[in-house]
């Protein structure tokens, strides 16, 4: 049973088509990165999965049931972007309130607050919390009742690097325990090592979805080899030029190194030729990053799309 499944889902608001025929699923024990600029349909997709809205067309299935059904909501943890709480209550009181609403064991409250590093602040009023502390409280809230589907919108905002690393470690533990996790983040490079699959939305349509290797194949973007010459850059250039894969390769020099862009299919052939030539002292291999893939799939109009990745 999948954590959620969107089948040909469209959503229309007034006359605007906010989501257009999206097919997407998340399986248990998987972390999915959901990326898209403002207005791409990311928030709409989340709201449909949470059952806050009904699709205009298509089918949304969540944990084998209907989105928004209380029996389903009980097993969903959600951290909204810029999470806010009642400022006059303490962290402990807020978490207890939400635990009661979820029917979760109240003993989980101090446990979770400890897990997110709020042991010392749990009895302070939330109005005294920093943004990072509020975010950690939001995360504790999302973890109430051992969710089977966890949806986190910009979870690293306000977190320092150590807390961010802790968060990702925690998400991996949850994933290994079978929780399905959806992660929406601005910070694409930081997210890359922690997600199993990525889905890229633009203007309401799903442009690409899959693991990074599949996305790289689909994008067919070049891998960059950064070569330090044993003798000279010119000698290295000669090796590259004589290699069978050289047709149409992009080369540039930088700080005494030669950078060569090579298509994935031809990468291994060129590397072997380079190694055999004895002209390479050191070699770095740079595959397209998640950020590169994102820019590739949404097209060059990223900034025009109201401010880049969201």
């Amino acid at each position, binding site marked *: 049973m999948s954590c959620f499944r969107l089948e040909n889902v469209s959503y229309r608001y007034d006359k605007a088509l906010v989501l257009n025929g999206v097919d997407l699923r998340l399986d248990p024990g998987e972390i999915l990165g959901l990326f898209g600029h403002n207005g791409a349909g990311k928030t709409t997709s989340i*709201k449909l999965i*949470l*059952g*806050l*809205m009904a699709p205009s067309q298509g089918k949304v299935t969540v944990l084998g049931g209907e989105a928004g059904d*209380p*029996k389903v*909501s*009980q097993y*969903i943890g*959600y951290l*909204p972007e*810029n*999470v*806010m*709480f*009642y400022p*006059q209550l303490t962290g402990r009181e807020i978490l207890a*309130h*939400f635990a*009661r*609403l*979820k*029917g979760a064991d109240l003993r989980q409250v101090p446990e979770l607050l400890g897990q997110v590093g709020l042991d010392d602040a749990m009895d302070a009023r939330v109005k005294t919390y920093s943004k990072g502390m509020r975010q950690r409280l939001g995360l504790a*809230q999302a973890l109430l009742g051992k969710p089977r589907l966890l949806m986190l919108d910009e979870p690293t905002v306000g977190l320092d690097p150590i807390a961010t690393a802790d968060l990702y470690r925690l998400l991996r533990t949850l994933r290994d325990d079978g929780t399905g996790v959806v992660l929406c983040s601005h910070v694409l490079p930081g997210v890359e090592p922690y997600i199993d699959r990525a889905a890229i939305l633009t203007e309401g349509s799903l442009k690409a979805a899959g693991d990074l290797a599949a996305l790289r194949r689909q994008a067919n973007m070049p891998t960059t080899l950064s070569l330090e010459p044993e003798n000279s850059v010119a000698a290295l250039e000669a090796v590259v030029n004589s290699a069978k894969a050289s047709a149409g390769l992009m080369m540039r020099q930088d700080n005494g190194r030669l950078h060569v862009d090579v298509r994935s299919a031809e990468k291994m052939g060129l590397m072997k030729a380079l190694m055999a030539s004895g002209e390479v002292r050191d070699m770095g291999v740079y595959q397209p990053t998640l950020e590169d893939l994102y820019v590739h799939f949404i097209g060059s109009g990223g900034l025009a799309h109201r401010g880049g990745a969201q």
Partner: protein
Amino acid sequence: MNSIWTIARKELSDSFRNRWLIAIALVFATLAVGIAWFGAAASGQVGYASTPATIASLASLGIFLIPLIALLLAYDAIVGEEEGGTLLLLMTYPLSRGQLLFGKFFGHGLTLALATLIGFGVAGIAIALLVEDVAVGALAIAMLRFIISTTLLGWSFIALAYVVSVRVSEKPIAAGLALAIWFFFVLIFDLMLLGVLVASQGEFNAELLPWLLLLNPTDIYRLLNIVTFSDSAQLSGVLSLGSDLPIGPSGLWLALVLWFVIPLTGAWALFRGRRI
């Protein structure tokens, strides 16, 4: 039911925390004791006049104060959650919109009922203990009737505040509309009715006119607390129409109950259609 109680319990504990409940109770107790002892000062007397006179004075004051307190307590129930950023999160929990709204009503309603009971109850006990020759039984019944009707009046304005709160998207607008509701029912409505009476010079359907009083919960409240005690000849202004109403006190009680049930149901229907 558990979710409704969780929401109600938070509202109630908020009322204790921000001292709303104790402040309202204190205001009620002070006013009640003040009116009981000094209500007749204008006619040159100081001291307890009579139970009917005290209740009538309290009710006259209550129609200004109770709606205002109820509206202030409840106008931001939903729009406040939305502006504070907690509504979206709440709606992702196993909690229906109806449960959230009824939980809020339960909490706010209980706050107002407790404040009324404590405030006027304490005043009633003070009168019973300190005033000589007061008929305690009659006082208790009158006070109980007053407390229950005051609570129902408060509930009707809480429900009216919810209609505004689920409809608008900004708190200041909700506050403005809540004040407009107060202005309409407390100040304008009777003037309008009086205007119709005078302008029509008796040609307006005489049978229909008294029924129009039921369109205002504050008029029902006054009828319940004043007509029951007073000779109808003493009723002034539009309330004199009340003596022509063919329904007895039970009809008035029912009307006051409907005045919170119908707006609350309306608020629920509007909330269900709201986009979050």
